């Protein structure tokens, strides 16, 4: 019973929802600050993302006429919960070892729930522009999912004996050195970062939101606390994905001694890459995105996998 209570606390506070939300919002500040510097602006103070969420919580919630209310309000919550579970799984695998639901396939499926929630919510809003956004988001999921799976399973192939347990992958790296030391996993890592860009719907893959074209598309009808939940899960995703990549490819999180600094450096490097891609690329069309992911990116991912098969 005590362990269940501990787990609930883990999920609610550290390293689950609360911690993920706070660090995610801080990361979003880094994102905004770096973006501002790239564009020769000053950028917001560190507490700006928190202030934004707080402001949204105080606003009224508008529900569009004719919307499926339950789906509209409920779907983003499922996304929030799923990111929280993934974050808890990843951290506990890193700091406690096994014993929890620490399984790779579970992580991969849970990571699609925020997108799915957004799609259902947008579709339920009854707004035609949001519908277009939902259609695009689903196509984007299809597009990146193929290379993403191949990239993640490249790491699984390199681990011996093969395992789907997160702690098993970490143990292997602790003994045999990080997977990123292999040519195959470097390629897989690059592919995964490209897919993360689309998973976060960051430019150049912000097609579902496309603020200059669909006026925020999938997010269009959300307001007040509901929009706060949507923004919060995006921020949490921005924190969770780099942690996922660090766990799978880069030796995981170490919270003792110099490990803390090393972990933070790894995290900042990944976030910086994502932010720089975001700021230097214009938005593509959805068909270009699909062709990009199913074409060159998938080929790259397969090359990585083949390298892993021959032992590189």
């Amino acid at each position, binding site marked *: 019973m005590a362990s269940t209570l501990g787990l609930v606390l883990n999920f609610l506070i550290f390293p689950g929802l609360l911690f993920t939300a706070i660090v995610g919002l801080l990361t979003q500040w880094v994102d905004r600050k770096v973006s501002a510097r790239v564009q020769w602006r000053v950028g917001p103070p560190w507490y700006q993302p928190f202030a934004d969420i707080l402001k949204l919580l105080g*606003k*009224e919630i508008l529900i569009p*006429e004719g919307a499926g209310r339950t789906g509209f309000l409920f779907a983003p919550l*499922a996304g929030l919960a799923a990111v929280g579970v993934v974050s808890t799984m990843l951290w506990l695998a890193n700091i406690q070892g096994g014993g929890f639901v620490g399984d790779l*396939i579970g992580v991969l499926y849970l990571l699609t729930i925020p997108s799915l929630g957004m799609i259902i919510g947008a579709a339920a809003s*009854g707004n035609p522009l949001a519908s277009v956004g939902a259609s695009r988001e689903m196509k984007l*999921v299809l597009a990146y999912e193929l290379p993403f799976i191949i990239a993640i399973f490249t790491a699984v192939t390199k681990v011996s004996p093969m395992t789907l347990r997160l702690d098993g992958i970490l143990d292997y790296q602790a003994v045999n050195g990080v997977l990123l030391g292999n040519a195959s996993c470097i390629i897989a890592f690059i592919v995964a970062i490209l897919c993360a860009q689309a998973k976060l719907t960051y430019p150049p893959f912000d097609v579902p939101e496309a603020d200059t074209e669909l006026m925020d598309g999938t997010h269009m009808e959300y307001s007040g606390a*509901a929009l706060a939940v949507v923004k919060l899960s995006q921020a949490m995703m921005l924190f969770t994905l780099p942690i996922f990549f660090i766990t799978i490819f880069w030796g995981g999180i170490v919270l003792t001694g110099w490990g803390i600094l090393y972990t933070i450096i790894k995290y900042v490097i990944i976030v910086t890459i994502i932010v720089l891609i975001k700021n230097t690329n214009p938005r593509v069309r959805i068909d270009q995105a699909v062709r990009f992911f199913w074409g060159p990116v998938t080929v790259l991912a397969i090359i990585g996998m083949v390298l892993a098969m021959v032992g590189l």
Partner: protein
Amino acid sequence: MSQLLIPIIVPAIAGGLCLLIPRRVKAVREVLTLAGLAWAFVAALQLFGQWPLSFTRDWVMFGDMSVQFDLVLSHFSAFVLVFVGFFGLGVALYSMSWLSKEHDGRRYYAYLLWTIAASAGAVLSNNLLLLLIFWEALTAILFFFVNTGRKERDAADGAAKSFVMLGLSDAALFLAIAFIWVRFGTLSMDQLSIFVGDGATISIYVLMMIGAITKAGAMPFHTWVPALGKGAPTPVMALLPASIDKLLGIYLLARLSLDIFNIGPGMQLLLMIIGAVTILGAVLMALVQHDLKVLLSYHAVSQVGYMVLGIGTGVPIGIAGGLFHMLNNAIYKTCLFFGAGAIEKQTGTTEISKLGGLAKAMPLTFISMAIASLAISGVPPFNGFVSKWMVYSGLVELGSRGMSYYWIFLVAAFFGSALTMASFVKVLYSGFLGQRLSKFAQVREARWPMTVPMLVLAALCIVFGVWAKFPLDTFINPIVPGAAATAASGAIDVSVGFWNPSLATGLIILGILVGLGVFGIGKLSTRRVAHVFIGGRKPPDPIDSMHVTGTGFYNTIKETKGLRSVFANAEQRIFDVYEMGGRLGNVFVQSLRSVHNGVLSTYLAWAVIGLGAIIFALLSALLRQLAGGR
């Protein structure tokens, strides 16, 4: 009378009575059907746990060999029998409301009862010849059953196509059984143990496998399922291709691959290839369908791929996953067809372009279809996720045993799952979400005989997902040698992975509650209903003109380079065995036919040429004789 005979005889007799009862008294017929099926279901439940049980009578003698009427209850057959009874009962209840007032349902209920009787017989028979007879009976009943559909033309086309394809696969099964008799001298399934090594045993196995996977609907023998989807009555779709044909086809495939034959890596690879191709091919076709029932039919095909793939791994966890997927698929696919039928009944159409915004009008149908859609997409914590997870784990275990190309199958299965999700987003969007069309203002929720089975099945999707250990320990693991590796805490613990569905579900629910708390802080009470925002303009009323239909949702995918030609070929039915067989036959017939042009001089010319050929042959024979004589 042996207990084993009840699930076969009771529905069979009830079906006969259904035909005898006068047309007018529909209520009596409905009660009789329900009672007969309920009896069969209860009998199946009572039988569960009583294995091994058998019933043997001498039947026919061929020379000095006797064929016995031989029924055997094993754990596996008892499990399949329970669910055959369960789905039969559900469909009967559903049909009460589905059949229109004018439709007396005389033949309909009789076929329904006979289907259950024949399925029970096929599951219980221990003799291959007996199995074949029940199997053939199912094919024949299906043909007549489908023809009770309202869209007569489509129904008849689909019925003919499935009759031909299933009939041919039955012929393959028959051929294999004849070979087994000749070579091994027995047809008792529990006495056979055939090592698949040489050409003869390989062909026997492949022929029997064709019989099994055609029934289940795997590629390349799948096209009868979508053809049925066009015109067959929806409950028939829910009963046969969605649930019972899956249970029977995969039951036979599993019996073949696990008990009767001892298959090697070669055959396993063949099964895995069939599975992976089926998953991807069928789901891609489903993505671009315009009719809800046809779309669901393609998914009924696609999901078979996971079962065949799982059985093909040959690893306990993979086999268990494949069999669990068989059960899960029957549950959610039946629920989905029921939902499609409810939509059809209440709105009169299943065309995706004509539907929209029914969530408010039909909330129960929406909820059950949404749950079933998430389950088929493999979203945790529903049941489809658990069985897919087990199949993936089986594949990874194969990889860890040195099969370096395991990832091709894994990626096919995983990506197929994403495509399934996309396809059901389209279903949910076009059917229930989006703006409610003004023409549906009067639409109401379906009546209780339709909603209750749907809700029960949707609840099962949750129960079998969250407490997956229960169905696994009760039904699946005991029949797969070496698959009982589940830990005590309700988690599924195998050598390559670990999944605790109850715990994950608990946390997700907790997270949703936290989110609701956030809503609470944001004063959900101060919500306000406003027009949708379309750029500042007031939306038109009714909003129908701005409705985005789900039809073109994935046109981008359809037009992607590389896939475009695949879809174009599929529309030409290049991948349809039935169609290609027909075309090949047609080429042959046409070439013969073109000779018959009705012009006398041509016929005379042919006659002269023929005469010349005969004379030439005779002469040459004569000359040879003369030469030989000298």
